[in-house]
């Protein structure tokens, strides 16, 4: 799985086509975060490690599902692409149930990206953690 459709040789790109697409055309990017009213916010990573991801979610309270998932990422191409893909997975098919969103795995995101180079495998996929933090933030603010 990891190595599928990744390439470092010839004119092949460092990453596969899906990663490339999400890097150059990121989905669900939050442009104006100051005026966005979110139900939950999650921020993970640190500048020291080279990756910081922020995720904003709006929740369909009746259905208990994610209605909107916006994000911003400081990081390399695979960090940007993996957060973008995470946002697609969280919102497709009527939105991911909150309980499932908290269990989203990096492997599931990487699979949808068509794989990542080995050295990017562990470091650059943090989107699921940011999503989990955003869901917890929503649940905690609702409990208050």
């Amino acid at each position: 799985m990891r190595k599928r459709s990744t390439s470092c040789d010839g004119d092949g790109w460092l990453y596969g086509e899906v990663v490339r697409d999400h890097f150059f055309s990121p989905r669900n990017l939050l442009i104006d975060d100051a005026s966005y009213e979110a139900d939950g916010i999650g921020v993970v990573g640190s500048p020291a490690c080279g990756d910081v991801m922020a995720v904003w979610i709006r929740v369909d309270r009746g259905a208990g599902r994610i209605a909107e998932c916006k994000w911003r990422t400081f990081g390399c191409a695979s960090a940007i692409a993996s957060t973008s893909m995470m946002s697609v997975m969280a919102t497709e098919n009527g939105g991911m149930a909150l309980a499932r969103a908290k269990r989203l795995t990096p492997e599931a995101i990487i699979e949808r990206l068509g794989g990542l180079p080995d050295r990017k495998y562990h470091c650059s996929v943090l989107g699921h953690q940011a999503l989990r933090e955003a869901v917890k933030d929503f649940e905690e603010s609702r409990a208050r």
Partner: protein
Amino acid sequence: MKTVYLDHAATTPLDEEVLSRMLPYFGERYGNPSSMHGSGRRAARAIGDARERVARAIGASPDEVIFTGSGTESDNLALIGAARAYRSSGKRIVISAIEHKAVTEAAGALEREGFEVTVAPVDTRGMIDVAAVAALVRDDTVLVSVMLANNEIGTVLPVAELSEALRERRKKTGFPRIHTDACQAAGHLELNVAELGVDFLTLNGSKVYGPKGVGVLYRRRDARLSPLLVGGGQESGARAGTESVPLIVGVALALEKAERLREREAARLSRLRNFFIAELRARIPSVIVNGHPTRCLPHIVHLTVPGIEGESMVLMLDEAGVEAATGSACSANDLRPSHVLVATGQSDENVHGSVRFSLGRGTTEDELGYVLSVFPPIVQKLRGASALTTSYYAKEKHLV
């Protein structure tokens, strides 16, 4: 789409004249320089001629020129070879904090052999303090290795001043021996081994429009080396192995030509660099130009773009046809950020946000104009997607 190559510090294109002079030695002139017959003697003459050309370019004697397989090998041979040769005189070496990995890793190998390695710090501009480095030298210090110019940020280090500061000690004891890696300086700075006052100097072919796979190590006549490769005793016993005649012919011509073009080309690149930096500062808010403001190579422009990450910048530039480099961790094989940027005390997020443009013989103002038209929108796009530029992050983490 046109390609603008701005990674000459990684490697330069091969000069066509150099290529054409090398080609016969890949073909009909296949003799082994060690053979006694005509083919061998002709090969040996070609190498002798190459040795003389290299010697002239650096103010050395031909017998002080050793051909190796790369700049890395020359650095390894200088450090490990000299340290082993002089180990009975002392087991300590001093290197600067911004040496090429070929030096830092060679020093690491020496540490595992029981040598003590002292690393001299640099300031935020990548500059050493000559007196401070000289003060690190003790009686058991057999070798000091300080590069002539840094390959990432382009800072030119005061090697001549350092050897001057160590002159009295060296006259008295013969130590420390001094090595300098001049790979990135070649073709941009004057390389006179006597004026630099060094015992060893590293050069290679691939940074001077010559072939890859060949290096040069200058060794002062009275300096000793323990060889890393043993066998047939080639290169006066310093580096065994049948010589690659075409690559040796090529690197010699390339160095000779680089020296011939040096003053004119350095002046031209300096003007281009100043233009490029002024325009970048005008077009990219809060961009930081790294390295030393005056003691710098004329062809390296090293930037930090706060808020975004280097690999993203380089891949987007590549998509726009601009080939540049980054010291970002995400581009490195070991995922650690550049030790050079860390040594200059850059903040964590800035270490990850670096991009290096390195100019060369083919670089024109038009090309830089094209980069100036595509780079600012890339920065804007990536900053627009970055978590570090959000108001949330600014408020919560007190950053940016």
